[in-house]
């Protein structure tokens, strides 16, 4: 009974299935996002989707989205990280001290800050993975410790302004290397951004098409061709629309470029790498994973290191955006990041979730925030709505699970 041996009997279906498969538990979040966008577009008379506003939404929420990516991996593994807000603050402060007070060039300062984030992550990862203290406790302690460190580093006052390069990373836009091009009634738009958008769309089609071909080759189930076109076309259309709007405003924000790289990279890591698969295995059933030879402790350790690095990156970007590292930076960011992950389909017990889901969850909150402030709603109402959305998202998740059982 070796693996290489040919199947002793032909698979029941000699032809690949072409069938529409929709998982309500996973797709619900994207439908909800679309509905929320439509709702606020109508309520704000289209202001929500105006070029400058789209750009604002992305730039103002980039650091939460970066945190949400790391948080998703931690929650999939069945842990939680309450300290990211404080880590954001202490890393922003460190970067300010290095660049502003010590005059270090921006790139080494940024790299050093990321290393500091890794060290912080390693500290917490050690207690969680090797010492066996629940992550809730370790990171609750971290939340206090790193906030205290922030105050100590900053001497209880803000430090700024940051070098231009860091501000550009947080707030700036790609240059219009090739100049503008007229888009008829839409006015002028940046050619580089448009080309990037077209390249992105082409990549979507290419990757989807290759995956479909491969799946057909292995006799797996695929969508019928029109549905495939509709799905890929829909994704392409959204990407293109966002890019056109951004190109009409001020080209692509650098943080969007960064976020795109992070999302692609981490999606790949989570879905296709052995490391990523092991995270899901640990979250799904830790003991079974251990008995299957998964190195539970090192993997737990490294996802906390990863979270530390991403929190440091978010810290630099947040400080750069405000052009100052302040003692209260990052307050309650952990809650937004955790909420983004849960709205985006993570399960409380772990083992479930997607990086794209965390981003979508973060964007849902971002659009609610932005849309309601455009409507002039006071912040308490915004908070109330966000809280109810979080509750509704998790309730929906549990409801679909119970219905399936």
């Amino acid at each position, binding site marked *: 009974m070796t693996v290489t041996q040919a199947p002793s*009997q032909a698979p029941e279906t000699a032809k690949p299935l072409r069938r529409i498969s929709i998982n309500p538990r996973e797709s619900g979040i994207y439908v909800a996002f679309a509905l929320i966008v439509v709702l606020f577009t109508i309520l704000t008379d289209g202001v929500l989707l105006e070029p400058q506003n789209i750009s604002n939404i992305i730039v103002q929420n980039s650091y939460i989205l970066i945190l949400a990516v790391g948080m998703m991996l931690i929650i999939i593994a069945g842990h939680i990280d309450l300290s990211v807000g404080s880590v954001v603050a202490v890393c922003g402060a460190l970067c300010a001290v290095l660049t502003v007070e010590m005059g270090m060039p921006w790139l080494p300062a940024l790299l050093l800050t990321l290393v500091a984030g890794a060290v912080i992550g390693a500290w917490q990862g050690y207690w969680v993975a090797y010492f066996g203290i629940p992550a809730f406790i370790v990171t609750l302690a971290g939340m206090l410790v790193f906030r205290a460190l922030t105050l100590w580093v900053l001497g209880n006052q803000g430090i700024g302004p940051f070098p231009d390069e860091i501000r550009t990373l947080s707030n700036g836009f790609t240059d219009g290397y090739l100049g503008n091009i007229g888009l008829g009634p839409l006015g002028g738009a940046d050619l580089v951004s448009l080309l990037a958008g077209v390249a992105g769309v082409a990549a979507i089609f290419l990757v989807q098409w290759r995956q479909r071909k*491969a799946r057909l*080759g292995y006799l797996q189930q695929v969508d019928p061709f029109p549905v495939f076109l509709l799905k890929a076309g829909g994704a392409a259309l959204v990407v293109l629309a966002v890019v056109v709007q951004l190109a009409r405003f001020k080209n692509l924000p650098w943080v969007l470029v960064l976020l795109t790289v992070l999302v692609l990279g981490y999606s790949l890591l989570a879905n296709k790498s052995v490391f990523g*698969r092991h995270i899901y295995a640990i979250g799904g*059933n830790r003991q079974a994973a*251990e*008995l299957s*030879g998964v190195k539970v402790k090192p993997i737990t350790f490294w996802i906390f290191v990863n979270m530390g690095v991403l929190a440091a990156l978010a810290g630099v970007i947040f400080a750069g955006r405000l052009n100052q590292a302040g003692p209260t930076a990052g307050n309650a960011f952990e809650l937004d990041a955790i909420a983004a992950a849960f709205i985006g389909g993570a399960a409380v017990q772990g083992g479930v979730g997607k990086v794209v889901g965390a981003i979508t969850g973060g964007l849902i909150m971002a659009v609610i925030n932005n849309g309601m402030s455009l409507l002039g709603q006071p912040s308490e109402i915004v908070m109330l709505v966000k809280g109810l959305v979080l509750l509704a998202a998790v309730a929906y998740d549990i409801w679909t699970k119970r219905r399936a059982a």
Partner: protein
Amino acid sequence: MTPILAMRGITKTFPGVKALQDVNLAVRSGEIHAICGENGAGKSTLMKVLSGVYPHGSYDGEITFEDERCRFSSVRDSERRGIVIIHQELALCPQLSIAENIFLGNELARGGLIDWNRTNHAAGELLRRVGLDENPVTPVSELGVGKQQLVEIAKALSKKVRLLILDEPTAALNDTDSAHLLDLLRGLREEGVTCVIISHKLGEVRAIADSITILRDGRTIETLQAAEVTEDRIISGMVGRDLSQRFPPRTPSVGEEVFRIEDWTVHSPVHSGRLVVDRASLSLRRGEIVGLAGLMGAGRTELAMSVFGRSYGKDISGRIVKDGREIHLRSVQDAISQGIAYVTEDRKRYGLNLIEDIKRNVSAAWLGGLSRHGWVREHEEHRVAEEFRARMGIKAPSVRSVTGKLSGGNQQKVVLSKWILTDPDVLILDEPTRGIDVGAKFEIYSIINQLADDGKAVLVISSELPELLGLCDRIYALSRGRITGEVDRADATQERLMQLMTTDRE
């Protein structure tokens, strides 16, 4: 005698499945009535209908208890009528005391405050009735499974039980505890308590039941008077065919030795200094199926898991020799790469990721072999999983089906697939057919035979002696952590093995 309980025309449908179809059950007052059937036959569903877990209106048919139509909308309703169900998984709170557990939800209180003296006194009385000699204030976590089972029964008695339903009460008990429990049930019968018992252990059913109702595929097949039936008669009712052979035939071709442990000694990780495995030695040969018999608590699983990359125990000493060379297995990864596989006795807790699909469970222990530079070759993974689904006969619509929804037998096939994929030379199978119905058992036995025919050495750990006798070429007996004997297939009898398994340390 008049029936105390009559269930007529019970039909219960879940989305897509008819779990029960026109089931009838009549239980006479003061008898012990056994319900037998393969896994998935609908036994537990029927009991959940009776006890109100599925409320009135969610099923069709009618229930009459003590000449009254019953429409229970919750478990509380049925308990008020004296129908108490004890589930397979015990529902006790481990940190609470025996007395607190007995009166949980039913507290002896005055003016909203619990009267502890009365509670503990009453609990003591109930413990005496079930023959459990423990202090009522002892936390339940300090009791073994057998005693916890007795606490459950005491709890049922505290509710003035008229009809006691036990779902697989002896599944987790050793023979002594089982015997004690069966005696207790006989005693309760004398006191006028009617019992419905669900059990896979047919010997036990024959020993205790007055009548037996057999379910198959959600239908009532027949009700038999226990005095006149044999085990084979019950089995043929359950599977719907005469099972002339419970074990597939096999001609063993045994080769040279591949695996040996010598003087293997393991200490308990919890109680320091306590020996769990004591200088055990055994050897396995290519193409051989070897049994490991032992009572619960003899150290079978502990022996297996400590060998499997030190997954259990501390202060482990002894030698492991594979293919004539001593090897050191410090971790599960070491064990896997040395060609050792361990299939756990508790597949839900230790064997499967129940929220993931078949594909990802099959590949879980061999992702490295299915990947290139740290990236999983997903299509290859899918192909391999499909291949196993076909070859092992895993009944599921596709390899994307979530394992948590499969039946016990199919889950076990997924776990076996996972380990066969690692291409091991030595497989340790811990209770490979626990909680699996008769038909699926036969399939698992065939797979085990096939593994041996492919030249692998297989060590089977089992509580069921007939299983070991039917399957193995050679059987070791383990008693209190020591190998007390080795018996060849030709000389092995249940009596001989039982004698070795109960041998005390000299």
